[in-house]
């Protein structure tokens, strides 16, 4: 068991920022979420059960995110101002463009159900293995696997991407290997 080294955490800021952006759907909220996560983690000495800071940080990010969601839900709802409303798609045919922006991609991820979103972010954006992601999100590895599978499928459908139907693919098995991007960052 080791102690979390504050200096070494700074190397994960970019990755945490991408994860936070996909969770929140907004760059501004992502900045706040990452800063709040680091503030919480650095508030006291932390002990690691393994040597992977990244999966510890993912757990901290998830906890901070859930707290912020709950806090926000207790506030009175604010009706959007006219200038806040995004313009409708002006593409003449409504046909998907050949390019996609990060904001559109992360915006679509942010629309996924919370459990699916967290699973996809942990595996595909943070790059944790399924085992690490399951620990960070405090779920069983089989549950995590199913959530990643369904999250990818939901995301594909929301972006108009063709879904690869597989015989017997009922959500229990993932068509892609887990843990391809596993582990630390050095």
């Amino acid at each position, binding site marked *: 068991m080791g102690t979390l080294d*504050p*200096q070494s*955490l*700074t*190397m*994960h*800021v*970019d*990755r*945490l*920022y*991408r994860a936070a*952006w996909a969770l929140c759907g907004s*760059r501004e909220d992502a*900045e706040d979420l*990452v*800063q709040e996560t*680091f*503030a919480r983690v*650095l*508030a*006291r*000495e932390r002990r690691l059960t393994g040597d992977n800071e990244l999966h510890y940080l993912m757990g901290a990010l998830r906890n901070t995110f859930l707290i912020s969601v709950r806090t926000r839900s207790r506030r009175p709802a604010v009706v959007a101002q006219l200038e806040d409303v995004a313009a409708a798609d002006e593409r003449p045919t409504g046909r*998907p*463009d*050949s*390019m*996609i*922006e*990060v904001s559109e*991609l*992360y915006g679509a*991820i942010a629309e996924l159900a919370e459990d699916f979103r967290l699973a*996809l972010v942990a595996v*595909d*954006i943070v*790059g944790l293995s399924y085992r690490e992601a399951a620990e960070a999100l405090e779920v069983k590895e089989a549950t995590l696997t199913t959530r990643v599978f369904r999250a*990818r*499928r939901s*995301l*594909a459908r929301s*972006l108009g*991407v*063709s*879904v*690869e139907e597989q015989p017997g693919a009922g959500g229990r098995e993932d*068509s*892609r290997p887990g843990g*391809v*991007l596993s582990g630390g*960052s*050095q």
Partner: protein
Amino acid sequence: MSMRRPETESELVDLVRSVDVSAPPSLHARIDALVGESEPAAAPRPARGRRWRLAAAGGALAVAAAVLILLISAAGTDTQRLSVGRATALTQLPASMGAPGESASASGSLDASVEGVSFPYWEHSLGWRSSGARVDSVGGRTVHTVFYTDARGRRIGYAIASGLAPGVSGGQLVVRGHSSYRLLSVGAVNAVVWERGGRLCVLASREVSPRALLELASWGESKSV
């Protein structure tokens, strides 16, 4: 940042995994300030919670402002002399141009160079693909930076400055073949500094260790000069 729209679920997963967006410099500065604030953590903290958070936020803002000024001055002004610190700061800014492709005429090189010194092509051999670029001017010199990303989403910046390289001192000196490399830390950024064809080269990253950067720098030296 625009990317090709995926057509299959598999391409979509690859796309999600390959997005290389850096946090804004202001956020890095605020996190650096929080880390700096936490350094005396070994000693018991007399007050936590709201007072600590307010103090941290105040310190963070001050340091963020200072670091932002440093980054902006490094990136945006042409009146200051080129230094390793300024070249390194440029490697931490976002890309403003598309990624150069592999050179059709020079094996092992990208289709980007500064005064005959080309950027290496690392994707096939080392798994680092070029993901963007930017060009800045510092003290009358052009600094061309190419960003590389690996499968784990780590990002490094490779800067080459035009004109004869200024003298560099400090850091850990490592000699490989006919080249001398200096391993430095600029804030939270690891950097390797050396010369190729008389031009200053800086390879820097927050996520990659100095030794790994050295391996890349020395590989590029032998393969692409």
